[in-house]
């Protein structure tokens, strides 16, 4: 991780010389007896598209509202561009927010909504018109400038909200579940629009979402939150391929978790290899880890269903398990097979449907083999 990367890759978090735009320093936020955020430290860099992901009540919205200035940290400090923004009121922060409900002013037209913040900035009056026109063009809202918010569609309202929050060219844009109110298809299109706009304006985006797919699609880095703590902060591929806890592995996507104990390795074995005893009768699972957990400790072995191969004949692989198909979930492009490999232990395997369903050779109650390489899964200590 620490070695220098080519310039083309955007990864300021790996560069120790880079100064973060936002620093949460041991921030705690309590509401009465309830602790929403607990001693949280986090760096976010300029031009990042940073996603705060977690179930409702995990503190992600509180974290965002502290950035906007609607909540003050109980302990710790928040540094934005070198300034402690704790005592700065929301109207004096170089931060703008796109609200979940959009919060468009119903008594003002689209044009006036976008100009609202500019009129309260030190921008000269004659430049406001140009700026609004540019924002209208960026969000393809030109035709709707004279309409009121109730006269346009949900997708258009979402774009007005985005244009209004970007108009003042903030150092940081906060997006609170920005696409929650849109239907699935529009949401996918808008995700890519958001990424384009983020790239073309060079603004730092922090997005709050409970939709893991959305976070994975748009973000440069994802912070998975649970109960006011950060479970893991990493790039989407690291979060998916190398989760650091069973919680993260389970929260993002589909995963098989198999519990077992680490076996003593024979002398002269590869120091990164791990063998996990998960059943008294079956062969142990062979896996690798940079720093293997100590022998006899209890671990979880996590492997994604798409990394498990399924076949009718016994294959040659590092790990092979035998089982019986209990269930098949047909999703069109792929099928997920639920295979019982031991009493009560079901492992999911995913296969691409390269053949038509009528010619599929695996069906319910079939005896099958599951296999994967020794690097396909992750060993998670408790």
């Amino acid at each position: 991780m620490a070695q220098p990367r080519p310039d083309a890759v955007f990864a300021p978090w790996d560069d120790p010389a880079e100064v973060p735009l936002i620093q949460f320093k041991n921030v705690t936020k309590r509401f009465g007896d309830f602790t929403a955020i607990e001693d949280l430290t986090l760096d976010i860099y300029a031009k990042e598209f940073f996603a705060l992901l977690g179930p409702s009540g995990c503190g992600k919205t509180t974290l965002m509202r502290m950035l906007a200035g609607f909540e003050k940290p109980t302990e710790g400090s928040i540094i934005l561009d070198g300034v402690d923004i704790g005592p700065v009121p929301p109207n004096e922060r170089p931060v703008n927010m796109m609200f979940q409900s959009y919060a468009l002013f119903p008594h003002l037209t689209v044009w006036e909504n976008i100009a609202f913040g500019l009129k309260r900035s030190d921008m000269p009056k004659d430049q406001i018109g140009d700026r609004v026109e540019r924002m209208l063009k960026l969000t393809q809202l030109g035709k709707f400038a004279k309409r009121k918010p109730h006269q346009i569609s949900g997708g258009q309202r979402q774009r007005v909200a985005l244009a209004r929050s970007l108009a003042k060219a903030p150092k940081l844009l906060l997006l609170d579940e920005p696409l929650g109110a849109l239907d699935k298809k529009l949401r996918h299109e808008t995700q890519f629009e958001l990424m384009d706009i983020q790239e073309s304006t060079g603004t730092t985006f922090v997005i709050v979402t409970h939709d893991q797919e959305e976070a994975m699609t748009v973000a440069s880095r994802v912070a998975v939150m649970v109960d006011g703590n950060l479970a893991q902060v990493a790039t989407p591929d690291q979060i998916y391929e190398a989760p650091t806890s069973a919680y993260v592995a389970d929260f993002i996507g589909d995963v098989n978790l198999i519990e077992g104990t680490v076996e003593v390795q024979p002398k002269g074995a590869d120091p990164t290899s791990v063998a996990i005893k998960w059943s008294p009768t079956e062969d142990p699972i062979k896996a690798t880890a940079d720093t293997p957990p100590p022998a006899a400790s209890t671990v979880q072995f996590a492997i994604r269903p798409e990394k498990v191969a399924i076949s009718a004949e016994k294959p040659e692989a590092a790990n092979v398990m035998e089982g019986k198909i209990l269930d098949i979930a047909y999703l069109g492009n792929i099928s997920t097979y639920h295979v019982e490999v031991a009493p009560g232990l079901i492992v999911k395997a995913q296969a691409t449907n390269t053949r038509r369903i009528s010619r599929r050779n695996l069906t319910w109650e079939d005896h099958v083999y599951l296999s994967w390489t020794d690097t396909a899964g992750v060993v998670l200590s408790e």
Partner: protein
Amino acid sequence: MRRFSWFNATSLTFGFAFLYLPMLILIIYSFNESRLVTVWAGFSTKWYGELWQNDAFLDAAWVTIKVAFWSSTLATVLGTMAAYAMVRAGRFKGRGLFSGMIYAPLVMPEVITGLSLLLFFIAIGLDRGVFTIVLAHTTFAMCYVSVVVTSRLVSFDQSLEEAALDLGCTPFDAFRSVTLPIIMPAVISGWLLAFTLSLDDLVIASFTAGPSATTLPIKIFSAVRLGVTPEINALSTIMIGIVTLGVITASLITRATAKKAAADERAAAG
């Protein structure tokens, strides 16, 4: 639509008769030629003419309108502020007591309110007149305004105000340029309610009015004690006319606004 049954027709007739027959009789007798209220002696509009000559009534009418205007305006400002403070203050110790104290005058017998105001004005040595009636009416009308505005503010999306702050408004600017325009219809109906309440208040006004200032309800009430004259009928008819006109105008404005909004929406869709 279903045909009107006899039962419905009858209940409607009785209902309306119950509501409007007394007023109808008052209006009819205001055009009575005779000075005797209960004896019909032919059609005439002379009492309206005489009313116009009656300076005492005209003065009282003017005082009433002045009082109603100032007290309803003051009550609207104070009531809106109170409602805003109560809704936005969130939870604090003694919140229930506070909001209860704002609404208590709604159920307080008017005689008590009037008497306590009278004692208060005497205690601080304030001469009773137009000013004291305005103060008295403001105190009880502001609870009504506060109730109307609170119900609007409760359903008001608070993120609108946060958005205004986020875009650079000071809290006062956010209230002035976002909250107030949106809750304006509630504020206006609060004002109208306060105005109407002030117009027809007799009890509190008679406690707080001085010899220099008499409102129309007081004037009518004291005149009636000497006997009902057709002049009073005429005056009451005019008041009914003004109120009716006001109600019709208000509903026409509402309907026109609704129509315009619908037209806007069609234009936007097209």
